[in-house]
């Protein structure tokens, strides 16, 4: 039986040039598929599986499990995937607190971890690891880009707002790292809060000339709808998370004109992105979000490394990953010393195309941007 399989694999390797080392790879994907944050996990998963489906390499097996946004469950799934399923690569986690619970342990056991979304600062700096690759961004990146854009747009008095949890404080830190004006106010809200009347009243009274919000998922939808109704009218700025395809439909026209930052946009002009957007839409019947693009890039990175080296040869495979020799949908992409991306971050504006709300690029905020923690990483 085993011999037959090896023979089969050999045949496949011969018949498909370019897949020189068709060593089977087992990928374990732990992501959020139920509960309030499920939209993000679904997009990462669908983008990832789309790339696998399009590839000529048919020796990649993907196991997907739902972490329901709970760190303890994610840890259990990771243990099971490593010990009994014997996966070679782990990926998929959306939330930074779950990544912090899973990643250090997994890489300590010699597994590769490729992050399609979360980029906590701790894993980018002193605790960086040669087996941990972040294919999305370091958490602060999009916020830094927006702080930088606020300067060029001439905003001098920003009111900034984020939930009171690590990624929220990171977000405002990132914004303030680049923003040069003064702050009209700084507020931390409860994580998961859905009524922002009290905060919006303070924005109105503060005399700010811009509002920066980092409110992912349902929080952002609630804020934007209430903000539009309140008639305050001060321009809103935010990272792409609050203004991407997964939530725009629910915010509605209130989002039109909002400037946001992202490393990816549907209208980025490169062949890989055109194929991605078209095939994603054909396959799933909806427009991809930045999360889907990150899942897609992650899978293509694995495929590019698999074409060069066997995953059993960890050193060669690691070098192949680090080379990032794949066509990213965001155009140029390379890894810095800490295995986090060095990439352009764009400013986008929410527009309406027909009936559909979506984003279009209006400029580049930071070119070849690298995170602030890279120098603390001894790699």
């Amino acid at each position, binding site marked *: 039986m085993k011999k037959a399989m090896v023979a089969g694999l050999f045949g496949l390797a011969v018949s498909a040039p370019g897949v020189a080392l068709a060593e089977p790879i087992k990928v374990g994907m732990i992501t959020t*598929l*139920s*509960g*309030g944050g*499920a*939209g993000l996990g*679904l997009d990462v998963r669908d983008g990832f599986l789309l790339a696998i489906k399009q590839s000529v390499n048919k020796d990649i097996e993907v196991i997907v499990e739902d972490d329901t946004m709970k760190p303890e469950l994610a840890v259990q799934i990771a243990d099971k995937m490593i010990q009994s399923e014997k996966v070679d690569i782990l990926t998929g986690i959306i939330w930074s607190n779950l990544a912090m619970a899973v990643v250090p342990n997994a890489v300590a056991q010699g597994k590769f971890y490729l992050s399609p979304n979360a980029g906590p600062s701790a894993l980018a700096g002193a605790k960086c690891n040669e087996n941990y690759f972040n294919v999305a961004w370091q958490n602060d990146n999009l916020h830094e880009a927006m702080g930088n854009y606020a300067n060029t747009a001439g905003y001098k008095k920003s009111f900034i707002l984020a939930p*009171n949890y690590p990624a929220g*404080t990171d977000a405002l830190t990132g914004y303030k790292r680049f923003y040069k004006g003064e*702050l009209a*106010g*700084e*507020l*931390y*809200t*409860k994580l*998961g809060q*859905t*009524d922002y*009347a*009290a*905060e919006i*009243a*303070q924005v*109105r*009274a503060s005399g700010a000339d811009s509002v920066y919000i980092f409110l992912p*998922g*349902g929080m952002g*939808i*609630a804020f934007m*709808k*209430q903000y539009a*109704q*309140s*008639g305050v009218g001060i321009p809103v700025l935010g990272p792409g998370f609050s203004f991407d395809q*997964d*939530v725009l*439909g*629910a*915010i*509605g026209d209130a989002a039109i004109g909002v400037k946001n930052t992202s490393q990816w946009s549907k209208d980025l002009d490169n062949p890989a992105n055109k194929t991605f957007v078209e095939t994603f839409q054909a396959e799933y019947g909806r427009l991809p979000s930045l999360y889907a693009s990150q899942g897609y890039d992650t899978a293509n990175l694995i495929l590019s490394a698999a074409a060069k080296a066997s995953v059993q040869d960890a050193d060669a495979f690691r070098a192949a990953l680090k080379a990032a020799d794949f066509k990213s949908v965001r155009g140029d992409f390379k890894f810095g010393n800490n295995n986090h991306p060095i990439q352009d971050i764009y400013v986008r504006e929410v527009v309406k195309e027909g009936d559909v709300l979506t984003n279009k690029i209006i400029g580049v905020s930071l070119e070849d941007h690298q995170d602030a923690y890279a120098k603390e990483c001894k790699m």
Partner: protein
Amino acid sequence: MQTALLIEQILNGLQFGVMLFLMAAGLTLIFGVMGVINLAHGSLYMLGAFACAAVAAATGSFWLGLVASLAAAAAAGAIVELLVIRRLYDRDHLDQVLATFALILIFSEGTRWLFGSFPLYLDIPPLLSGAVDLPGGARYQLYRLAIIVVGIAVAIGLYLLIAKTRLGMRIRAGESDREMIAALGVDIRTLYTIVFALGAALAGLAGAMVGALQSVQVGMGEPVLILAFVVIVIGGIGSIKGALVGAALVGLVDTLGRFLLPLSFSFFLGPSQGATVGAALASMLIYVVMALILAFRPRGLFQAST
């Protein structure tokens, strides 16, 4: 300007309280009359929001959506009572918690299966959009004022229903002695179904009204459910009056705390530090209030007559 801000925040607190009252009234009614802890109350709230969003999207009318949310939540409440809750009256609270927790999971995944994982769109009806001027220079959103009015109307309606009608008399009788009212020939099973459906309809109404302000998504009911439990514990479990006072108290304390605490901490800790510490304290504030009230009145402000 500062008084205007304060007036606006007090109204925000009232509006939040009114919304909590709609949730807490059903919860406390169901507990008071039937002795059931219904964790699935948040799911009925979510159901109301989804029904409203779906019907509003299909017909273009928020008002039809509102009617649909009441009907859907009441129907779901009645079905749940007939199929599940009815079997739990004689069990202890642990069994009830377990069964109604299972209902949360069933409702959540069922809704996801029907509507998908992405949030739905529901907007405020054009009639109620925009803001109005208030005395004192404050401007306040019309829709939120409407929520306050609806909430007060529901409170008066519930009072009249329970104090003045035959149904209300039976509900009160059911609260004080279940066996006796059954022995007197009142159809207690139908009464329970009606009370449950009424509580569910109130939750559905709250869900639909709030859904237009916030995001309509799976899992939106659970955070509200926790606050609704805080409200009925503060107010005294089983008491509608307690639910009203408790809801107003929680709404005002939470909103004003979120507004004033970061502000006052900023004075001596600086803006950034003050904002973090103030926000952390503000999110604890209602639980501190609850603990204080329970320390002095262990059975809540308005203990139901049991």
